[in-house]
């Protein structure tokens, strides 16, 4: 029980608190002179001092992280290369253009050499970035959409809906994901689209579980109860109230998911299960594999492209994690 004095509040607010208020206004005359009696707590929070919103603070933390900056810069480079590839090398990168087995630097026309069939390695890597990024981004977008939807429904409604959806997620999780991927691609004709869909099919359960866990926590928060008490519908609560609060870990995961999707596409192409009509980093490694002792650059160069792109995405994920995780940002 608080030690309130029965019926003595007007005296307290009017008398005891008037004196310090005026002395403080004398020291800080630029502050607005609103009625302290109505809201003295407002006075301690001058509007000018609270400049940063959540998003801007997170951006500041992200930009202060050199690793994250490097990742962003490298990813921007890869995206630029992917966009410019048809301009720089308008010809089909799978066509034979020169002497086979030219080492990097041997012929200035082919700065990164040629492979066993005389195809330009640089053109292959540039065009390969298109397929890698397309598959990585599209597969992540698809699995995010579906995974967030399923996870949100399961986590928010709980009960039998949750049981049903969790069983569904578990079915996918018990299957070895890469084997499932190989089977899926083997059943349908391999093309960039089907590979993307197959990768999305095997990666959505991770997102769904993460989203479900977040929703289960946030569902119990006071502001969700307040939203329900204001008569908000389920859709409004899920998408306007809970989802924005659940986003930080999902964003972080998605950057790593892009990296994983690129790796999976490369692995599929390496095994000869990729789209045979387009060049990708994985398929370049796959064709160079037999010659790894005589012409190791054929596997090493596209391999480096994969390594750096995946590294860049992981660094971005790390940076986002630091920037968006409220436990870290609150102290800054």
């Amino acid at each position: 029980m608080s030690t309130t004095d029965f019926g003595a509040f007007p005296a307290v607010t009017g008398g005891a608190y008037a004196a310090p208020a005026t002395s403080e206004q004398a020291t800080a005359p630029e502050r607005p002179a609103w009625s302290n009696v109505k809201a003295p707590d407002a006075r301690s929070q001058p509007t000018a001092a609270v400049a940063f919103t959540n998003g801007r603070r997170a951006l500041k933390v992200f930009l202060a992280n050199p690793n994250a900056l490097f990742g962003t810069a490298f990813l921007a480079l890869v995206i630029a290369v992917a966009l410019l590839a048809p301009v720089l090398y308008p010809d089909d990168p799978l066509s034979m253009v020169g002497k086979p087995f030219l080492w990097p630097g041997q012929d200035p026309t082919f700065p990164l050499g040629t492979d066993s069939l005389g195809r330009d390695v640089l053109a292959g890597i540039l065009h390969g970035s298109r397929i890698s990024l397309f598959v990585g981004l599209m597969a992540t977008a698809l699995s995010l959409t579906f995974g967030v939807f399923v996870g949100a429904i399961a986590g928010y409604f709980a009960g039998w809906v949750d049981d049903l959806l969790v069983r569904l997620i578990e079915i996918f999780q018990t299957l070895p994901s890469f084997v499932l991927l190989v089977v899926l691609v083997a059943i349908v004709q391999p093309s960039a689209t089907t590979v993307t869909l197959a990768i999305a099919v095997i990666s959505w359960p991770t997102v769904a579980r993460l989203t479900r866990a977040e929703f289960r926590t946030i569902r119990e928060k006071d502001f969700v109860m307040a939203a329900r008490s204001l008569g908000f519908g389920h859709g409004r609560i899920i998408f306007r109230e809970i989802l924005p609060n659940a986003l930080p870990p999902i964003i972080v995961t998605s950057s790593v998911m892009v990296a994983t999707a690129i790796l999976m596409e490369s692995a599929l192409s390496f095994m000869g299960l990729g789209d045979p009509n387009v060049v990708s980093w994985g398929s370049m490694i796959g064709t160079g594999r037999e010659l790894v002792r005589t012409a190791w650059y054929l596997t090493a160069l596209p391999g480096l492209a994969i390594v750096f792109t995946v590294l860049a995405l992981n660094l971005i994920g790390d940076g986002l994690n630091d920037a968006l995780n409220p436990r870290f940002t609150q102290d800054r």
Partner: protein
Amino acid sequence: MTSLLLQVENLTIGFPRAEPVRNLSFEVRAGETLAIVGESGSGKSLTALALMQLLPRAAAVISGRIIFDDRDLLGLDAREMRHLRGRDIAMIFQEPMTSLNPVMSIGRQIGEVLKAHEKLSGRAARERAIELLKLVRIPAAEKRVDDYPHQLSGGMRQRVMIAMAVACRPKLLIADEPTTALDVTIQAQVLDLLDTLRRELQMAVVLITHDLGVVAQWADRVVVMYAGRKVEQALPGELFNDPLHPYTRGLLSASPRLKHDFHYLEGPLTEISGSIVSAAGEVGCPFRPRCCQARASCGHQVPPLIAQTPDRLVACPFTSSLKAVPDAAHLSL
């Protein structure tokens, strides 16, 4: 007297293994402030949640009726109830620090309420949000409307919560310990604000509190709850001058005296021995294990509410003899 807005009849709320609210009846008249007082665990908050039909998953209303505006809320389906919440009945919560969505600006949060119940464009909602911020006396409302909750102090956040609750001019506002998390001066302002808004918007307020100081100043009528039952109902003046139930007497003698020259050194604050947990599983009067006036007959059955006057109910058959006890004189305030 004005008409009845809310009528709760024999409300019993049950968890699978316990019944934290039993046979509770009370009514709220249009435009009045009804205070529900009781210690933690007496079932105040559960009652409030039952009024909103927002009981936790495990709990359920076992019996009783909640008649609001001539409609039984327990008979409404989820959709009808959702339309009622926020528009006709609104609620503000104990914790202003966590009751606002941290990633949405307060203006948009107020706008969301308006959009949920009325067809409004984004710009109109924003203007209404600014008006509402002014209504709850937030200074520089035009600037504040884009602030996020973490930029506001506790008192300001509670004001924003109130703005959201009264956005659609509800007929009934349930305030569940609205000032517990705030310090005492802010408490007074927030309650003053609620009282002003009650008059300006002509709504009734159910004020749930454990703070008798709040009751004395802001309530029109008081219901004292103990272990899920109503033990006394009175006008605040009567309650403080002449408490009838032993529990109410105990509560009053456990709070600092009213006289402003009172110093705690002059007399001890008496406590009510035992805890509310001891009421669980009791057959007779739930207060019997802690009551200094308990008699053998108290253990036989739950004492019924006795109406002394229409507005004065007490669930203790021995009130007249208690008054004769000379020791009770120092308890009356």
